[in-house]
Structure formats: C-alpha cells, structure tokens
C-alpha cells in the first residue's frame, strides 16, 4: 500500500464521514438537551428528498439546501411537539418519523415527478460542486503535507468544510456559552434549570430545532453533494450509524468527529479492498463489507468503556402534576 492509495482512502473517508458527522452533531444537540432522537435517519431522508426536489425545480443548490433544512426542521418540530409538549415516548416518536419519511418521500416524489419516487438527475448549479482550496496546486510539491492538503483536504464540496467548522462551533456553543450550559443542564437535571427560571420546554425546542437544521444539511449533502438526485431509501441506515458514533463518542463534539471519521475510514477501506489476500488467505468480499458493522459492535462492546448518556435523556419533563 503506497502513499497515493492511503491518501485516496483518506479522501474517500472525509466524503463518507460528512453525512454521519452532521447527523451525529444533530443527535448531540438533541440528546444533550434530554431528547433522544432516533429519527435522525428519517429526517436525513426527508431532507435529501426535499433538497433534491427544490434543487430540481429551481436549479439552485442553495435553495435546495434551504428546502432540505426546512423539511428536516418540520419533522423536528413534530418530534418536539410529541415528546416535549405532549410528553410522549421519544423513541416511538422517533420511529414514527423514520416511517413517515420513508413513505412520504416516495409518494410525494411519484406525484411530483412520476419517476417512481426518484427525482430528476441534478446538473450544474443544482449540485454542490467540488471546490479546490487555495494554494492546493502550489503546495502539492511539498513532501507529505502537500499531497495530503491537495488530495485529502482539497477537492470536496463546501459542506464538508462546513461540517468540520460545525464541530468547533458545537464545542464552543456547548461548553463556552450560557446557552450551552443551560442546554447541558436541561439534559442532566431539568428541575434545577426550571428552578433558576429558565423554560425547560423552550431550551429543548431550541435544541431539537438545531438538530433539525444539522440533519437537513446531512440529507442535502447526500442528495446534492454525494449523489445527483434522490433515490428512495437513499439514507441507507446512515442515521443509525451516526447514532452509534454519537454513543461511541460519549456525546462529546470532538470525539464525535473522530468516531465519524473512523466509520468513514472503515467504509472507505471496505470499498477499496473488496477482496484482499491476507497472509495467503483470500478474505472474501462479504467480510470486507460487513467489517464496519462488525467493528462497530466490537468497539461499542469492548473499547469505549461505559458510555453514560445525559441523565434526563428520554424522560419528558413534568413541571407539576
């Protein structure tokens, strides 16, 4: 395995990790405020569909992004309404959102485009184009750092960089702002926040809305960045992998980044080496494709230590009976 191969795998890793990263950060905001969110998958799917549809209608990927975010935020509000206002079961609401998104995207898609639930192929300004970072050409001559910068970091769509910035932003918001302190407190001990005169419901709604926006970007990246249009069920379980990454990272922003990169790396390796000869034994394709999932189980079961979720997670806050 030479340097070029390694760089190409890392390049692919960054692309594959980005949707996971947005979704995991969405889950982070939501779960840190005490709202368990297994509807990440559904929100991502709905956002993928609406971003592709709006981009197909308007020809502008930015309008598409806005459309995807709007769809995801609407689903977030439904989740918030069910689990915060009406104090329903958060898991059930999340599952419902997944089913809702899986069904409605295809039905609406068929009604709008008549293409069996897919959207038309997006072209030109309807998609996020790959952008070259400044100095990528000049720096590529520098050994090691140069090719790394030119191949791995440069040449992605703008959302990849937004994702990396969002990690830092999330850390700053959560740990360096008053809003973040209250958000974390609401997830750990809502009574104390309420006693201090801050509305628990408002804090939780804010967190759920942020989750909606981030999930919307994740979905838009799938449909208008990685692919060129929506295909039914195109989220393909990425929302759940993001959830696993979130737990693996123990609900902390920077570890979330590394967890997502790890899952991206495993998938990239699985794609690249579908069958390799290891010590004279031919490792079958099936094993390489199952590898990310096998390692997920192994890592989650053995190496993370105890992952303690926010204490008030999953419990609706009841002010008084």
């Amino acid at each position, binding site marked *: 395995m030479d340097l070029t191969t390694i760089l190409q795998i890392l390049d692919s890793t960054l692309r594959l990790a980005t949707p996971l990263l947005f979704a995991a950060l969405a889950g982070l905001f939501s779960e840190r405020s005490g709202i368990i969110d297994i509807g990440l998958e559904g929100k991502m799917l709905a956002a993928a569909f609406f971003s592709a549809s709006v981009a197909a209608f308007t020809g502008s990927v930015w309008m598409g992004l806005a459309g995807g975010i709007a769809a995801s935020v609407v689903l977030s509000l439904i989740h918030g309404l069910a689990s915060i206002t009406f104090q329903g079961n958060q898991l059930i609401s999340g599952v419902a959102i997944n089913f809702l998104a899986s069904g409605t995207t295809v039905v609406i898609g068929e009604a709008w485009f008549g293409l069996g639930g897919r959207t038309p192929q997006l072209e030109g300004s309807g998609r996020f184009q790959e952008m070259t970072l400044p100095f990528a050409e000049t720096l590529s001559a520098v050994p090691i750092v140069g090719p790394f910068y030119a191949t791995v970091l440069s040449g992605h769509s703008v959302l990849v960089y937004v994702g990396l910035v969002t990690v830092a932003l999330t850390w700053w918001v959560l740990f360096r702002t008053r809003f973040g302190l209250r958000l974390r407190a609401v997830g750990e001990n809502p009574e104390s926040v309420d006693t201090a005169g801050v509305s628990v419901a408002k804090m939780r709604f804010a967190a759920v809305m942020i989750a909606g926006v981030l999930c919307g970007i994740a979905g838009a990246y799938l449909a208008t960045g990685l692919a060129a249009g929506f*295909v039914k069920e195109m989220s393909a379980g990425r929302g759940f992998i993001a959830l696993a990454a979130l737990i693996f990272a123990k609900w902390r922003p920077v570890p979330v980044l590394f967890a997502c990169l790890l899952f991206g790396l495993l998938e990239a390796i699985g794609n690249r080496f579908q069958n390799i000869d290891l010590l004279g034994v031919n490792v079958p394709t099936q094993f390489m494709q199952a590898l990310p999932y096998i390692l997920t189980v192994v890592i989650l079961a053995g190496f993370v230590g105890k992952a303690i979720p926010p204490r008030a997670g999953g419990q609706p806050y009841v002010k008084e009976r």
Partner: protein
Amino acid sequence: MTLMTKFLGAAGALALTAGAALAEPGLIIDLGGKFDKSFNESAYTGAQRWIEETGGDYTETELQSEAQREQNMRKMAERGANPIVVLGFANASTLEKVAPDYPDTNFAIVDMVVDAPNVKSIVFTEHTGSYLVGIMAAMASETGTVSFVGGMDVPLIRKFACGYAQGAKSVSDDINVIANMTGNTPTAWNDPVKGAELAKSQISQGSDVVFAAAGGTGVGVLQAAADEGVYSIGVDSNQNYLHPGSVLTSMLKRVDNAVYDVFEEGRNDAFAPGIEVLGISEEGVGVAVDENNESLVTEEMMAAVDEAKAKIASGEIEVHDYTSDDSCPALSF
C-alpha cells in the same frame, strides 16, 4: 339502506369488470422499482409498447419488499392474469412453489430457469453481451485499467463481470480489470451514493472505463464517471442519454422484447413453456449505439465488436459463463 344497496351495486360492478378483465397478461415489477432506468424499466417499456401496438391492457404490481413475492404472485394468478411475467432470479424459488397451484395459468420468469409445465424460463446470455462491451472498454481505455461495479453480489452479476473481463482481456492481456460489488442485500440495487463512491475509488486506481451492472445504484456510478471525466457503460436499458459524451455505450438486455413476446404469445394463445435462451444472434443482448455516443465509438471498436459477434455466433469464441461452474478464468472475486 340505500347506501348499502349502492355498495352492493358497486361490488357487483367490480366483480363483473374483474370477470371481463380475464386473461389480461400480468407483470410483476421486481425490487429496485419500475423506474430504475435499467432492468425493471426495460420490462415496463416492453409492456407499454405491447399496449400501444395491440391496444390491449395488462395488470401490473410492484414489489416493495422481499416478503411480498409469494403473496403478489398468488394474487396476480387469482385475479385471472394470464400469462404472468415475473422478473429476476430471486423469484425462482417462489415460482417453483406457486406455479403448480395454478396449473391453468401460464408464467414466464426472466433470468432464471424454473422447471414446470406451465412456466416459460427466459434467460439471456449476459456474458456474451458483457464480452462485447468489455472489448469496447479495453479499446477506449487509455490507462489500461477498466472496472466493473456490480449491484448485489449474486452469480448473475458475477456473470456480467466475468464476461466483461474476458472481453477486455481479449483485446490485450495487459488490461487490468477491477471488479467491486455494492453489497449482499437487495438494498445494493438502490444505493447510488455507495455506487458513486466505489466508482471514484476505482477511478483513483486508474480505471477510465466503468461498467455498472447494478440497477438503480448504476445511476450513481454513471454520475461519478461523468463528474470525473471518464467513460462509463450502462446496462439493460439504453442508458447512453443519461450523460452524453461520458457513457461509452450500454450493454442492452432486451427484457422489453421478452416481455412483449410473452404478452403477445398470451394474446395469440400460443404460449410455449420451456427454456428460451436469448443471445447475440437472437438480439437478446447487444451494445447500444445512438446519437448520444456515436462520437465516442470508433470504427475500429464497431469492427471488433462485429467480428466478436460473428465469432461468438459461429462458436469460434466461447465466452465462459460464470454460472456454469461458479468460477471465472479472467477475474478473481
């Protein structure tokens, strides 16, 4: 009471129309969806053509999950559709169970052989069609590396890959063929993101012609090839129009003709059970050349393809069929 009468009347009318609709042919669209721009869409096009040309009508359902196969097939038979066309190898075991229960209904299955007195099995020689596009790929490649993205990892798709590799190697022994599969479950027919990622990985390994035999996943593969400025090859339907200038050609598999013929046999009461093999000489498989790709296809390529066609038809070239012994001399999986 009047409401009740109305309902009864409506039910009666429905029953009557159901009786009148007897002996319409039926088509069960397989997983991946009617508009996969590939295998299923080809069958759908064939059925539409039959409607246009004969003025007849047919019944159609679309599978949503693996579990619906048997239920759908039985329902179709009980509705009185005849003959019933089912698409795809995955239906074989279900059809083996269902066909004996409806001895008066004729079935046709595409891509698999089911031995029953009322079943017609239509199989294509995909390996020979893939051989032809393999030749074109190798001739179009400048890097000496060509690649293949398969959908679900099943023998049928390996048959495509194996024929493709043999075709490419027939041009030059030095041609490097990379083959990847998208997954092991039916979702692998519908994951364009993974398809694009596999294609990009192959392109970064030097491939400059990517052949996709992956249903809906192929849409992502063709897109990735167009984005990276290399050639791609479509499958089943003519996909040349998807990215003119990038899609080198498409390996046609005339599922549309097969569906049309079965429907037509049903109309003329001439249904013939048994195995029908559609190959190059029957024009069941072939390569697509139209206005979208004529600038990419050189005369040498067409000459080589025509020569190979003639040699395959005469038996001079024997393309190895992966499914005959589950191995491929030109490619390791």
